[in-house]
């Protein structure tokens, strides 16, 4: 029993699987982004090389920083993402409820942002602090819409809050994206995860040209490696979340596997396209966008779901 739990956590669908898949999808991101810019792009294993190279580099820590927080933040973020990956993966690959339900995952995703904020703020660097503040505002911007997006499958499935039950409902009644409320919620959900991953146009907390990677500015060596890995792991976790909530999960048998892979890759490619075709927007514009447009739209989706549409 303990062995199986550890396997799920550390190997599949948890840490190792999410990390490897994330680094590979990260390559896809870099490659497609390069094509958009008429470049060749990196080789397949470039992200692995980067990660291991960073592990061997020096860790520079600010003398006056709160060092424990600075060191623990990226590792705790890594642990949180592994946990989320395991919970979602267990539903997706094994059709099992594991450790927590949708509310647990909703709050755990906030925990990742907490770690970014704490890690960035621990250094005392002005750019890191600005980035940390922006990270929080970005979370506030997308969270309202994210909550509403979560509510649509909950309502559609007859008020189920466990991932496996949402999947079971979709196996019987068809994917939630097949309904008007489902389509609206899925599109808003896609934008929310774009913001949660701080991908363009929402890369406001990092804003390289403006605040030099923000919360991550003082990070180097293995700790930066973990932040990079965390970022790539999200390329697996958040699209998987949308697959569970709206696309009816995965079918791993025969041609179903190919279809499942396509569903996942379609989400990733759309995210990469949005990322490469939009400039960074200001934080107040983001707040306005999510609170005044995306959230009311998502609320309409919730009302439609209540009406059974």
């Amino acid at each position, binding site marked *: 029993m303990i062995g199986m*739990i550890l396997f799920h956590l*550390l190997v599949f669908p948890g840490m190792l699987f999410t990390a490897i898949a994330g680094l590979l999808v990260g390559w896809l991101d870099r490659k497609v982004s390069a094509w958009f810019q008429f470049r060749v792009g990196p080789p397949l294993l470039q992200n692995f090389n980067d990660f291991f190279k960073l592990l061997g580099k*020096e*860790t*520079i*820590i600010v*003398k*006056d*920083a*709160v*060092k*424990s927080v600075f*060191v623990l933040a990226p590792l*705790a973020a*890594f*642990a949180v993402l592994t*946990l989320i990956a395991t919970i979602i993966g267990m539903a997706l690959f094994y059709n099992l*409820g594991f*450790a*927590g*339900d949708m*509310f*647990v995952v909703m*709050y755990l995703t*906030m*925990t990742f942002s*907490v770690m970014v904020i*704490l890690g960035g*703020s*621990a250094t*005392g*660097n*002005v750019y890191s*602090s*600005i980035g*940390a503040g922006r990270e*929080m*505002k970005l*979370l*506030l911007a997308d*969270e*309202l819409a994210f*909550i509403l997006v979560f509510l649509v499958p909950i*309502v559609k499935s007859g*008020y*189920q*809050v*466990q991932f496996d039950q949402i999947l079971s409902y979709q196996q019987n009644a068809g994917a939630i994206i097949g309904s008007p409320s489902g389509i609206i919620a899925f599109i808003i959900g896609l934008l929310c995860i774009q913001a949660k991953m701080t991908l363009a146009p929402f890369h406001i907390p990092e804003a390289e040209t403006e605040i*030099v990677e923000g919360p991550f*500015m*003082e990070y180097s*060596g*293995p700790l930066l490696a973990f932040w990079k890995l965390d970022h790539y792991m999200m390329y697996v976790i958040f699209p998987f979340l949308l697959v569970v909530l709206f696309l009816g999960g995965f079918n791993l048998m025969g041609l179903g596997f190919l279809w499942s892979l396509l569903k996942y890759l379609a989400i990733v490619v759309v995210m990469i396209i949005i990322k490469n075709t939009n400039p960074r927007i200001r*934080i*107040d514009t983001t*707040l306005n966008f999510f*609170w005044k447009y995306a959230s009311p739209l998502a609320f309409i989706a*919730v*009302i439609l779901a*209540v009406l059974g549409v």
Partner: protein
Amino acid sequence: MAINQLSLLVLVPLIIAVLNLFLPVILRKILAALGLVWLLILNYQLFINPVAEIVIQGVAVLAVDKLALVILTFIQILAVIILVFSLKGVSPKIQKPYYVLYPLTLAFCNGAVLSVQALSLLIFWGLSGIALYLFNLLGDEKTTPETAKKTFIIVGGSDVFLILGLVLIWFLMPHNGGALWNLKIGLSGELAYTAFFSLLIAAFAKGGGFPLHSWVPDYSKDAPVEAVAFLPASLDKLLGIYLFVRIVWSLFALNFGIHLFLMTIGALTIIFAVMMAMIQHNGRKLLGFHAVSQVGYMILGIGSGSIIALIGGLFHLINNTIYKSNLFLALGSVEKKTGTNELEELGGLGGKMPLTFGFALVGALAISGIPPFNGFFSKWMIYQGILDLAKGVAPGYQVWLLVCLILAVFGSALTLASFMKFIHAIFLGRRPAKWDNISRAPLNQWLATGILAALCVIFGLWAIHLPITKLILPVIGEFGFSVPQMLGYYNPILVVLLFGTTLILGLIIYWGVRKVRLDAIYLGGMDALEHFRVLGTEFYKEIRDMKPLKAIYNGAEKKYFDIYDISGRCSFAITRLFRAIHNGQLHLYNLWIVLGMLILLWVVL
């Protein structure tokens, strides 16, 4: 004749308070500490041996049931912990009255919870309000007298409604002889509704529910920090919500419309108070607005009519007293070292006061509902309860309930935002040079905050096994309900084990490859001057300046939504009118007399 234990819970602190009037400070502390530990033991014995009610002239006056026992338990626990914090650090100027008022307040609060008769409830409730006022007067801010007056008017004024409510109940149930609680009065007719809303006002004013909350943030800023942790953060919350539970679940039999109304009030309390908390620049005021916001979750859960949400609401009451007093005391430790609670003046103290920082962080994460701390579990139960309710109602009501849920969940994100600002402004970010020689908080202070932080963890991990099974489920059983199946699934211990395993693995990898070098802050080659510092207080300026929030915030800062100020303005307007018509001219007075007589004649005839 053996003395009834229940009377000891009132008499012991009362006697300590009287003795402390005459003792030197050191003996006051010792006596208060010994007395409070004794009370804790007495309280524990109530769990083991049931105690007979106290009857005076054939009327039961004091008694303890399961709900009262839970409230009493946390009153004694928090009183002991906050006393530990107070042993070293209370301003010498106020030490003497402090150690008189402290046990006195405890006696009144214990008395109010034990009361099962209208008159004794009124007396103890009123006296606890006076103790709240007197504690406020111990503060040394310029605005302290004004705040004390405001507190007294709102909390004391609400006692009038308590009297009205209890008298109306006596009218409704004349054969009951003023006995309270398990009456289940149906809400039909004006009298029943008036009684219900009157009692609700009393409960909200004490607990800090919207719109009677406005004394809490002011009190938080202007009273001594120990008093704030003791009363608005802990004991008053326990009393106010205790009365609220009684009103909703045993005094009246409510209809769905009233449940919906209460849930709406709860959701609005959450969102209004947290939005105000976000923009505060003073640490204590920020925490004060959160003390209000958290009441919203309790009102939402307890007022919903769902058993799961009731359990969640009661659990949230306990949790809130724990992490809120933790946060006030942690800020108190900082304040006692630096002499300020203005967030703009603080920063980077995490390295200088690591234990206080760690415990405050636990409190901040717990109040924000981050798993696996206790705050998440209670919120999670409240959410389950609301969804469970929504399953069985018409679509219109479903949407209403979902809006309440959305506001509650989003309120959690706003709470997190507010506490990230709090933590950043005090403990993280750049430390001003003037705080370079700050030392750690004394042992008694971090022991108090440490125990409270430990409770946040323990109640989060073993929520079902400890507080819910041992304390709350017996209350639910006594109300005559069974616990329905939960919709969701959450195993906090498994979550922590999984998280911990990966964290340890990450640490091992880091430890194995690390080559650490310490260096100065990097600002692209520029000197890291002290004024290159982000205060944290301006984190949410964009939200403050957003339309239409800007107008609401401006209105709130001018106190347009403060019931105390609104009432004040109305009274002054009426007074001005009367002043204008009483201008000292005789013929005008004659006119008023004639007009008055004509009106009287018209009414009588």
